């Protein structure tokens, strides 16, 4: 951000209300290319809504979202084109249950990028290999563990060659022993230079992997900075209280 390059993701005074309930109250945030930003905060603080506004799965009620400097909140913006470049991973995986793992990974490649079946399957197999599930290509999602499903979901997003990835509490729905495999994949991605915006409860991941940590509370960014500073030396009472609650157990 300091070297003058265009941010990969930039939010300007982003606002979102559900009826009279204002969930985001003016968020300004920039994610530089190849940067990993973690968003932490209590549930209900608006962090998932923020993430979902980035690819406009949630329609912002005010402010701007810029992807590589392009205003995607412009009314004429073709969202389908924008979303090709933004991979997203959901808390509930959202794999397509009627398709095998490989077909989950090839569907959008063929339908959106127009790749041939053969090319899509080559890429798909490569991506499954990348998340350590090459041998599960023929399995249906219901035959996979939660951790495996989430890794297939990551492979599905990666197969589109996204410029950036959004993670919406990707490990929150997993049994504790399965969290590690998914975090490993995310850590590898980060080390390979993927731009990542990560909503998470995993403080260890935020501390070790991210370049920048954002603490949200009641729809505003309460505190942000390098992980050691934000997590090691919290300035606001709210963050101090939040970290105590999270780290206590």
């Amino acid at each position, binding site marked *: 951000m300091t070297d003058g390059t265009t941010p990969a993701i930039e939010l300007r005074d982003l606002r979102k209300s559900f009826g009279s309930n204002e969930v985001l109250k003016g968020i300004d945030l920039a994610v530089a290319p190849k940067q990993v930003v973690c968003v932490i905060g209590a549930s209900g603080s608006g962090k998932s809504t923020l993430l979902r506004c980035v*690819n406009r*799965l949630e329609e912002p009620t005010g402010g701007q979202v810029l992807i590589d400097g392009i205003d995607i909140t412009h009314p004429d913006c073709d969202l389908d084109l924008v*979303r090709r470049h933004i991979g997203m991973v959901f808390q509930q995986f*959202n*794999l397509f*249950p*009627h398709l095998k793992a490989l077909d989950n990974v090839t569907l959008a490649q063929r339908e959106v990028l127009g790749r041939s079946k053969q090319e899509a399957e080559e890429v798909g197999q490569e991506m499954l290999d990348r998340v350590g599930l090459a041998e599960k290509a023929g399995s249906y999602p219901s035959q996979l563990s939660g951790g495996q499903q989430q890794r297939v979901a990551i492979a599905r997003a990666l197969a*589109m060659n996204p410029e950036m990835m959004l993670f919406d509490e990707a490990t929150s729905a997993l049994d504790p022993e399965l969290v590690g495999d998914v975090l490993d994949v995310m850590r590898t991605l980060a080390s390979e230079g993927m731009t990542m915006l990560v909503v998470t409860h995993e403080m260890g991941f935020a501390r070790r992997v991210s370049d920048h940590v954002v603490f949200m509370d009641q729809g505003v960014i309460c505190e942000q900075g390098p992980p050691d500073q934000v997590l090691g030396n919290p300035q606001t009472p709210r963050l101090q209280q939040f970290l105590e609650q999270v780290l206590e157990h």
Partner: protein
Amino acid sequence: MTDPTVERLGEGEETLPELYRSGRAKQRRSRNSRIAAYTLGALIVAAVVVTADWERIGDKYFNGQIARDMFPDVITIAAKNTVVYTVFSFTGGVVLGLSMALLRLSSIRVYRSFAATYIDIFRGLPALLTIILVGFMTPIALGIHFPTLFGVPTGGIVALSLVAGAYLAETIRSGIEAVPKGQVEAARSLGMTHAKTLRKVVIPQAFRIIIPPLTNELVLLLKDTSLLAILGVTITQKELTKFAQSESSRTFNGTPLVVAGAIYLIITIPLTRLVSQLEKRNKAMR
């Protein structure tokens, strides 16, 4: 009746307080009422068996000669036509139903009200009236001649498709609405358009969800093809019920109707069994 746990809770047991001893009396009461019901049932059956004129019933409903005379036409013409009517009406109904379900879920108000009106009308009208209106009156009133398809007139197929489509539209809509929102979000986040998301992600899952009610509709439709008996058709165009009715009238005998009934059951019972099989497989996959 000789449940060992009941025996152990006898008078001498110290472990069960007096208050709880009423359990035994309850079991005895329920056993007594069951015995009474069985006895009543047995008496009714016995009365019917003794008083019925079995020779006459056998001759009028289970007459082997008349049953044999129905073959092979009852299969090669009647049952075949019933199946043809059912398959084409169901196909037409699914296409129409899917279109109407999508219109009903459209964001455009005019589309929604059009679909809602269609569904209201054809679910609200008696199927028989629709069949007479479309299959019988339309050719006369408007001079439209329905072509034949696999040897049957398409007027009845159009009418049944309209009726089935109205019911199927609601079934399919409920299936589409039952697909989790996260599925659409995942597809859209990959850059898939609204239309492609529907075609590749939502509709395939919706149909899996509604296989049981869909098969149920198929069975209902198969039975409703008997309403086409009202349309005057040539000998080779008769479906099962019309065929059996003609044979019964000709012979003054109920046997053709019994045979037709048996053929309906031979088709419908395996179909409903198949539903539960599919349901089980479906559950395993989701």
